[in-house]
């Protein structure tokens, strides 16, 4: 196999068919950008879940009168509740009391990025709570059932409930990105197939001669296949550029990646995440363009 021959055939092919090549690169790039965005959201969810894995707690919020009178949880009913929880060592790992002042401190820390929120908040507006860390974070509803109706308890909040809702919303965005990516991928697929056909047609004389003088299938078809792959890879590189743009503009500026919300609560999308996604985009591009090219040659081009 003479690499220089195949290479020069690929370059001529792409140049001869330049409008189609550009269309192919653009659709591939958009499709892969959407795919990449979806993958970034997946990583964001994963990172956030990891963040919470051993921190997920059930908060038992105490009624206002308990929170006002008992700042240290040394009186009933707070004391009784705490003791009861702590005795249940099979299920519960740790119980921590958080007073209204401590809650306010934590609130200020979380919403540092939004001073206007911190300004309107008062310690009195935040309830005192018992923060229960479970041994097995899979079954937080047991605590809710047992303690929601006890005296001194206002309500029981399961953090995983809130996270589930948040992840559902993210999952929706992600599903949308994936569906759009698939639609674009179909367009890209058809364009690749068409480009390969046009390319093979414009070079039918060459291919005819090649076949006649006994060139192997690699020589006659590899240039077309590589054309598709080269265009696919260029599309992937463009997609990576777009994805960096999406990260720094959409996630960083609009959603306020890690600024609006404490990065310890919802994991931001980091540069590392973009880097981790890129090889998959390139691989997808190579795989899709090569397979489409191969199938097209099989179906439409005589050998």
């Amino acid at each position, binding site marked *: 196999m003479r690499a220089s021959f195949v290479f020069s055939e690929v370059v001529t092919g792409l140049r001869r068919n330049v409008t189609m090549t550009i269309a192919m690169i653009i659709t591939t790039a958009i499709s892969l950008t959407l795919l990449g965005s979806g993958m970034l959201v997946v990583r964001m969810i994963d990172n956030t879940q990891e963040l919470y894995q051993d921190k997920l707690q059930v908060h038992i919020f105490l009624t206002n009168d308990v929170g006002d009178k008992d700042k240290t949880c040394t009186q009933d009913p707070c004391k009784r509740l705490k003791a009861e929880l702590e005795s249940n060592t099979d299920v519960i790992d740790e119980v921590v009391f958080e007073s209204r002042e401590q809650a306010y401190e934590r609130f200020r820390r979380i919403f540092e990025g939004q001073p206007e929120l911190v300004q309107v908040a008062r310690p009195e507006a935040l309830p005192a709570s018992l923060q229960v860390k479970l041994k097995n974070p899979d079954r937080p509803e047991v605590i809710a059932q047992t303690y929601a109706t006890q005296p001194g308890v206002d309500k029981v909040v399961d953090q995983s409930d809130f996270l589930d809702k948040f992840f559902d919303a993210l999952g929706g965005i992600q599903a949308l990105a994936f569906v759009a990516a698939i639609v674009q991928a179909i367009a890209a697929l058809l364009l690749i197939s068409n480009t390969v056909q046009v390319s093979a047609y414009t070079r039918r004389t060459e291919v005819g*001669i090649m076949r*006649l003088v006994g060139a*192997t299938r690699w*020589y006659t078809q590899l240039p077309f296949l590589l054309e598709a792959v080269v265009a696919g890879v260029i599309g992937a590189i463009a997609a990576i550029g777009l994805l960096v743009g999406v990260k720094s503009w959409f996630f960083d500026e609009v959603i306020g990646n890690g600024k609006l919300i404490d990065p310890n609560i919802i994991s931001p999308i980091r540069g590392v995440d973009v880097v981790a996604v890129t090889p998959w985009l390139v691989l997808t591009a190579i795989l899709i363009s090569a397979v489409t090219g191969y199938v097209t040659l099989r179906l439409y081009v005589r050998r």
Partner: protein
Amino acid sequence: MIRLEQVSKNYKTSARPALAEVSVEIDKGEFVFLIGPSGSGKSTFLRLLLREEVPTKGRVYVANFDVARMARRRVPRLRQSIGCVFQDFRLLTNKTVAENVAFALEVIGKPKHTIKKVVPEVLELVGLEGKADRMPNELSGGEQQRVAIARAFVNRPLMLLADEPTGNLDPDTSQDIMLLLERINRTGTTVLMATHDHSIVDSMRRRVVELSLGKVIRDDARGVYGVGR
């Protein structure tokens, strides 16, 4: 060199077979004319040898290849041992004479230094030594056919198939092309030429295989075009 045994070929589009029980044997070094009117099966005959088609029945042998039954991946090897020339030359218009000839070697992976050596040799053989850098459209029809013959012969095939090679040429030029094919035949290359050209067949006095409606109706060792009808 070539052996067809009871070969039939049916196309889906026609009830009449393109070839019906054809048996022909051609020895190494022979020069054979394949004649007959359009639709008599000449093209199918040539296509079977190149494995562009597979016979419906019968066996086809070319050199050591069992053409009808060989694996698809070995077909390039078969074609590398056969040179082909056509009525319409089939040159690449965007390549020079030398590049057209070199192309046939490049695409079968011959090394550059070999190509550099053999291309001028074969151009000299066909009488185009001064025209290596010309483009095909700058050449006469006869010269273009010489380029095509050079391309077909540059890999020193065992046999040369020529499908109406003089169909587009005037009688004088045709005569030159025939002399060239004879010269190639004298190097030991088997030549099989399909043609309509009476005068060429009559003047050459070579073996003639005549096809009509897919059957061999004549096989003369030293034939002329019209005799026997």
